[in-house]
């Protein structure tokens, strides 16, 4: 038995040895270094290649676009371009670049650098085109030519008027990369990013951390932090545990259950910000009971959106009234009533339509980008609809399979389908999903086959109008018609959240869901 005892003693010794120096190690993160718990390893730090919000959170601190969203809003303001003009026909955008800006590699930001960026994405014959693919390059598909008029002037000529152009330039896909670095690194640029932002890239340790540090040569106000470390922590429970144990200073995408827990601590600050997101049900307007507008309105009235947002999602979403999220302050219609929870009126409408006791199929995703808690939400909706006499059966799919099922259209598959979108312009969602030209067989996402010529016209007009006030009015008009037609059940807008330790100062979430860290300090 002495051998057993000996082995056990050695084992215990090893464990004690392992535990002893821990405190020194954790204490070594300096005070001016912020550690952010991200949801995943970034796929790429090349803004033309990246597609995920998770990657954007890093990119937006390394790079800048010609324009950017004014902090706290989704309205554009000057960034690398200090001013611009738009021709009366809305076809020519001329930008004047800020003077004296250099990339982190020392090369100058000039008009040639800007044209390189857009040509790389849009011209398959461009020498750097092989650094793609560029999945979101269609954001700029309206661009016919980009020209360097002189060193500080860039001119974009569009194929047709396209009002979301400025907003798309502020989106991460429009962030400007260093042509020198792209040419040097080729496909490896995505792991060795070079931009003009307040932070510059330091290192990327695969699946462990991405570190960025203060750019001492920044043209604007210098970042307060010396460095930021982004750690991928996929499991939300583990992320919460890291936060509780002091391993990270900032945690994004806090699960609803953990959020309530953090709210109870004084040493943590909870941040919330509703974003340009909509969670809705696509309704099959072509066939079945939902082809009748009254039944679609009844579905909208029957769903208790307050309960879903506040109880089920524990306040991590707000109830939706229409298609334009409140985060689009300039286009949002505060007077819109939407569909309050009114089972009485729903029952009356169903009776009138003769759809009492109708059988409906609801397609539910198991998870997915922006889908919140789709299974629980599907079940809650099923119960709400049963309350007014609609019998709903649920079919659940894995996310990728789900998209492949729903996107080609609901016909023959179901009457309702869950869906969520996050966009940067009020144009995007209705333009891609509710126009007659966006029916699935025409290459769009109108999976519920909604078609209203008046809406089509308003959306086309809005896209051609460069005056924001006029555009906003057109969107409000379209939204009122869409809400009345009820091609969807409008359910919720996601409220993005984050938790920081109380040592973190100057932190705020953006409606764009970006994570701007230049003004943040710690300690």
């Amino acid at each position, binding site marked *: 038995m002495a*051998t057993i005892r000996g082995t056990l003693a050695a084992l215990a010794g090893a464990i004690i040895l392992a535990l002893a120096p821990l405190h020194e190690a954790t204490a070594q993160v300096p005070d001016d270094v912020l550690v952010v718990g991200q949801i995943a390893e970034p796929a790429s730090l090349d803004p033309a290649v990246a597609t995920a919000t998770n990657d954007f959170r890093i990119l937006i601190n390394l790079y800048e676009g010609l324009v950017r969203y004014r902090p706290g809003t989704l309205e554009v303001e000057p960034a690398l371009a200090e001013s611009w003009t738009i021709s009366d026909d809305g076809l020519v955008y001329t930008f004047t670049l800020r003077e004296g800006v250099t990339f982190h590699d020392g090369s100058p930001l000039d008009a040639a650098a800007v044209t390189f960026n857009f040509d790389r994405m849009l011209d398959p014959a461009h020498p750097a085109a092989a650094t793609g693919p560029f999945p979101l390059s269609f954001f700029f598909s309206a661009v016919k030519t980009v020209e360097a008029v002189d060193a500080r002037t860039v001119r974009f000529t569009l194929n047709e008027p396209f009002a979301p152009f400025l907003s798309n330039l502020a989106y991460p896909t429009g962030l400007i990369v260093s042509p020198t670095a792209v040419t040097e690194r080729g496909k490896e640029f995505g792991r060795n990013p070079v931009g003009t932002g307040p932070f510059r890239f330091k290192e990327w340790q695969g699946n462990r951390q991405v570190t960025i540090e203060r750019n001492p040569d920044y043209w604007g106000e210098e970042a307060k932090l010396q460095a930021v*470390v982004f750690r991928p922590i996929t499991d939300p429970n583990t992320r919460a545990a890291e936060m509780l144990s002091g391993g990270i200073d900032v945690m994004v995408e806090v699960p609803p259950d953990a959020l309530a827990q953090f709210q109870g601590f004084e040493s943590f600050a909870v941040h919330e910000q509703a974003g340009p997101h909509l969670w809705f049900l696509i309704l099959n307007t072509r066939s079945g009971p939902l082809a009748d507008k009254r039944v679609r309105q009844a579905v909208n009235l029957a769903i208790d959106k307050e309960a879903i947002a506040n109880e089920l999602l524990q306040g991590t979403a707000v109830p939706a009234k229409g298609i334009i999220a409140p985060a689009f302050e300039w286009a949002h219609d505060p007077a819109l009533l939407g569909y309050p929870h009114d089972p009485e009126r729903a029952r009356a409408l169903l009776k009138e339509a003769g759809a009492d006791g109708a059988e409906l199929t609801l397609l539910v995703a198991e998870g997915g980008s922006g889908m919140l808690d789709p299974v629980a939400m599907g079940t809650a909706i099923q119960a709400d609809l049963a309350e007014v006499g609609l019998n709903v059966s649920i079919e659940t799919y894995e996310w990728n399979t789900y998209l492949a099922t729903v996107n080609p259209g609901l016909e023959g598959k179901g009457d309702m389908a869950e869906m969520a979108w996050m966009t940067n312009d009020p144009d995007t969602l209705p333009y891609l999903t509710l126009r007659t030209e966006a029916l699935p067989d025409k290459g769009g996402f109108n999976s519920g086959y909604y078609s209203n010529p008046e809406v089509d016209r308003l959306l086309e007009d809005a896209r051609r109008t460069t005056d924001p006030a006029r555009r906003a009015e057109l969107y409000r008009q379209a939204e009122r018609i869409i809400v009345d037609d009820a091609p969807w059940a409008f359910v919720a807008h996601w409220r993005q959240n984050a938790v920081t330790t109380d040592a973190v100062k100057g932190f705020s979430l953006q409606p764009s869901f970006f994570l701007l860290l230049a003004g943040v300090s710690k300690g």
Partner: protein
Amino acid sequence: MAAYIAGRLIALVPVLFGLSLIVFTIMALIPGDPATAILGSYATPENVERLNRELGLDRSLPVQYATWLGNVVAGDLGQSTSLNRPVLDEVMERFPATLILAGAALVLASVLGLLAGIVSAVRQYGLADKLVTLAVLVGISMPSFWLGLLLILAFSVRLKVLPVSGMYAIYGGGDAADLLRHLVLPATTLAIVAAGIIARLTRSAMLEVLRQDFIRTARAKGLPERRVVFVHALRAALVTVIPVIGVQAGFVLGGAVYIETVFQWPGIGRMLVDAISTRDILLVQGGVLVVAASYVLLNLVADVLQRLMDPRIGA
């Protein structure tokens, strides 16, 4: 022995070939594609088609497979669609982490399992035996990801003596002590189930051996009991136990998928889960091949050890 090992290694080739064909077919059959996964909300048929073409996924499946196979023979595992980098780079970066975790877990499971099994065999029906049997039952029944979270809660959040997740500290880490600290919880979690199974088997193997004539002879010769148990009996019992440890290597590698997620261990298990959900076929292929090859190799090691230890199996 050399011929035996060479034969087994050659047999690995058709196994891996068949496996890659099966994985490729399954990945091709499940709905969804990499372009849809990358584009998410923006996956219009037009965009999907364009991106698939740029990713080289518009060719027929046999052509894609043949191209891949040709590249593999030349040492190129292809390009990951979800990570925008060569599959080989990603696999090579991640595989050592899994190897360290699974290796540590396997060693821990073997040590714990053998000790527990020996104790309960020697003290059959005694208190120690009953305690071990109960512990084994609990260990085997516990879902490992749940156990992992409990350990994190206890040792990292409450006691603050061990890190929650990751493989190295963010600053100033990187040495063996740092690695060991990060390894304790995930390796323990991963080892518990395997240890239980090894303990059970060791117990029954030891019980059987301890009843045999040569043990009685050894005892009759007046050898100390310690020597009888740990030299004579254990050596004979190990012949039965070692192949089981080899099989456990497979369970440990499989279990690493959950454990790597819970502890954010930068290994290949988590990579496979992500690769499947993004339909990153080549990354799945690369990961599965490496895991399968190491599983087969570990079993080969176990078989060789067994042959060396058991005079009855001809070399």
